[in-house]
C-alpha cells in the first residue's frame, strides 16, 4: 500500500518539522471559538432580505395570492418555460403547480434537465435554512435532498420557511456539525463571473437569478 507508506512518511516529516519525537502530539489546544452575539429575533427576516437583495437576489413574501403573480411575472421576464422540483418536496411542488396559470410554463424533472433538456428552467426547492448575516440560502443533501434545482436551473426559486432563518453562519453550520451530509451548499446570490474585463455578468454556470419565497 504505497499510499499508506507515503502517509506515514508525511507524518514523520511533520513530526520532525514540529520538533516532536515519537508519535504525533496529544490533544491540541483550542483556539478561541466563535462567540456570536445573540441575534435579535425581530428584524432577522428583514436583515436576511436586505443582505440577499444587496447581492442581486429577490425576496418575496406575503400570501400566495400576492406572491404567485409576482413570481410568475418574474419567471416570464427571465424567459423561463419549464419548471422542476424535487419529487418529494411537497411545498415546492405546490408552488410550481400553482404557477402554471401564470405561465406558459410546462413541468419537467431534475433528471430531464440533467439529461440535457434545453428549455430555460426554474428550479424549485425548499431550503434547509437562511442566514441573515449574509443573505444566504442553505440547501443540502440532508435526508436525500437534491441540489439540482439550485444547480442546473436558469432561475432558482428557494422556498424558505421564516422560522428557519438564523442570524449567523455559525448557527447554520451547527445544524450539520453532528453528522454532515455529503453536500452543504450556501447560496448567496446568482451565479456570476467578472472574468472578462472585470465586467460582472450573471449566469456563469448556475442560475442567473435567485428568488427566495418566504413561507
Amino acid at each position: 500500500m504505497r499510499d499508506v507508506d507515503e502517509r506515514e512518511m508525511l507524518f514523520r516529516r511533520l513530526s520532525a518539522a514540529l520538533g516532536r519525537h515519537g508519535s504525533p502530539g496529544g490533544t491540541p489546544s483550542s483556539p478561541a471559538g466563535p462567540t456570536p452575539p445573540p441575534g435579535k429575533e425581530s428584524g432577522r427576516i428583514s436583515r436576511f432580505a436586505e443582505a440577499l437583495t444587496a447581492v442581486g437576489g429577490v425576496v418575496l413574501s406575503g400570501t400566495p395570492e400576492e406572491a404567485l403573480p409576482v413570481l410568475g411575472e418574474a419567471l416570464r421576464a427571465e424567459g423561463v418555460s419549464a419548471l422542476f422540483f424535487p419529487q418529494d418536496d411537497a411545498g415546492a411542488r405546490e408552488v410550481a403547480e400553482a404557477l402554471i396559470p401564470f405561465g406558459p410554463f410546462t413541468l419537467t424533472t431534475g433528471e430531464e434537465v440533467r439529461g440535457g433538456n434545453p428549455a430555460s428552467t426554474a428550479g424549485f426547492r425548499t431550503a434547509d435554512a437562511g442566514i441573515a448575516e449574509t443573505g444566504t440560502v442553505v440547501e443540502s443533501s440532508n435526508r436525500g435532498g437534491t441540489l439540482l434545482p439550485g444547480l442546473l436551473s436558469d432561475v432558482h426559486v428557494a422556498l424558505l420557511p421564516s422560522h428557519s432563518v438564523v442570524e449567523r453562519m455559525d448557527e447554520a453550520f451547527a445544524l450539520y456539525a453532528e453528522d454532515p451530509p455529503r453536500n452543504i451548499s450556501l447560496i448567496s446570490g446568482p451565479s456570476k463571473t467578472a472574468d472578462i474585463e472585470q465586467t460582472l455578468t450573471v449566469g456563469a454556470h448556475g442560475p442567473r437569478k435567485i428568488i427566495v419565497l418566504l413561507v
Partner: protein
Amino acid sequence: MQPTAHLFPRNAQKALADKTLQAALGRATGRFLHHRAEAVAAFPGFGEARERASEIKRQTLAQLDHHLGRFIEEASRRGAVVHVARDAAQAREIAARVAKEEGVTLAVKSKSMASEEISFNVALQEAGIEVVESDLGEYIIQLAGEAPSHIIAPAVHKTREEISRLFERKLGEPPTDSIPALVAMARRHLRAKFLGAGMGVSGANFLVADTGSVVLVTNEGNGRMGTVLPRVHLAVAGIEKVIPRMSDLPTFLRLLPRSASGQPLSSYVSVLTGTRREGDAEGPEKMHILLLDCGRSAILEGKYREVLKCIRCGACLNSCPVYQSVGGHAYGWVYSGPIGAVLTPLLVGLPEAAPLPDASTLCGACGEVCPVKIPLPDFLLELRADMRSQGLKTPGEIAGMKGYAGVMKRAGLLEALERVAGLLAQFFTKGKPVEGLPYPFSGWTERRDFPAAAAQPFRKLWKTRRGVQG
C-alpha cells in the same frame, strides 16, 4: 508547473511595455482594492475575525500533524480515499492512476492553485484523459494555451476582442463584442462537459479536520457542478489547508470573500463531506482527496512557517504596487505578487527564484491587507538575508556593501567623502540635478534626475554654525 522565476527581470520589462496588460492591471487591481476597502469598512467585525483567523491558523500549524491526522481519519470514515504526495511528480502519478482506475476519459476541473503547482492537467492529458478547466477565466486561459496571471482573476490580462477571436477559433462561435454573449457561449460548452464528465476535480479552500470536509468557495458555481454531477470527485489540496473545526469556518468565510473581491460572501460555498450517502439523490460515488506536501513540511520547520497560513485570497497581489505594475506572469510560477515572492523561493528554491524577494519596495501594503496576518514584508527581508548567506548575491553587491559599511564606520571619513562629492557636484553640474550616472545608478537616471550633493554636508555646516556638540 516549470518555474521561470529567474527570468523575472526580463519578463517584468516585457509586462511594462505591454499596453493592454497595463490597462487591464490598472482596472482590475483598482477595482479589487476599492471593493475590498468598502467591504472591510462595512463590516465592523473584520479586525476581530482577522485576529482569530490568524490565531487559529497559527495554532493549527503548530499541531499540523494532529489536525491533518484527524482530517484524514474523518474523511476516510465517510468514504473518501485520501492520498498523500511528497512532490509534484508523485502527485501527478497518483492523479493519473486514480483517473485511470476510475475509468475516467473526461474530467472537469474548478480552479485550484495547488493543481497548478503539480501540473495536474499535463499528468492527466499524458494519461489520455481530457481535462477541461471550468472556471471561466481558467477556461479562457486553457483555450489560449497560457498560464493564469492572478489568483482569483486568471484572465485579467485578456480583452473581450481577444476572447471572442479565441472562441471563434476554438469553439466555432460567431464573433461578438458582448460580454454576456461570451459568458453564455462558455456556459453552453461547459455545461455539456459537466454533464458528460466522469470526474470532477476541485481544489480546496479549506479542509475541515473534525468532519473531514472539503470546502469550496466560488462565484460562478463551477465548483458545485463538478462536485455534484460527475461520478468521481477528486480534491487536490496542500496539507496546510486544514482548519480544526467546522465551527471555525464562519471566521474564515467572513474574511476570504471580503479580502478577495469585496463580497460579504461568495455566491456559493460548498461543504463536501465524503461520498454520496445511501438514499442521496445525487453526488459522487467515489471521493478521492490528494494531499500535497510538495515542500510544505520543510517550510513548516523553519522561520517561514506562518506563510502556510495563506488562504489564497489575492489581496496582497491587488495591494502590491509591483504586482500592479507587472502583473502575475512575470513572477514565473503559480503564485505571484508578495505571496509569490515569498512562497515561490520556499517551494521551488531560492536559486531559481532569486529575483523575487528583491521585487518589492517593502512598502508594507501586503502585510496590512493580509487577512491572516502573514508578515510578508518581514519574510521578504529574511529571504534577502538568506540570499546573502546562501551565496546568491553578486560579488559586486557584496563589495559595494562592504565599502559602504567601511565608510560609515568613521564619521570623519564620511564627511571627507561628502565634501568631495559636493565639490564634484559644483564642478560638473553647478549644483543642478544630475541627469546621468554610471552603473549601478544608471537605472535611476534613465527617467529621473538625481540630486546634486550639497556643496557642504550638514555635519560640516552645523559645526561651522553651532560648533561641535555631542
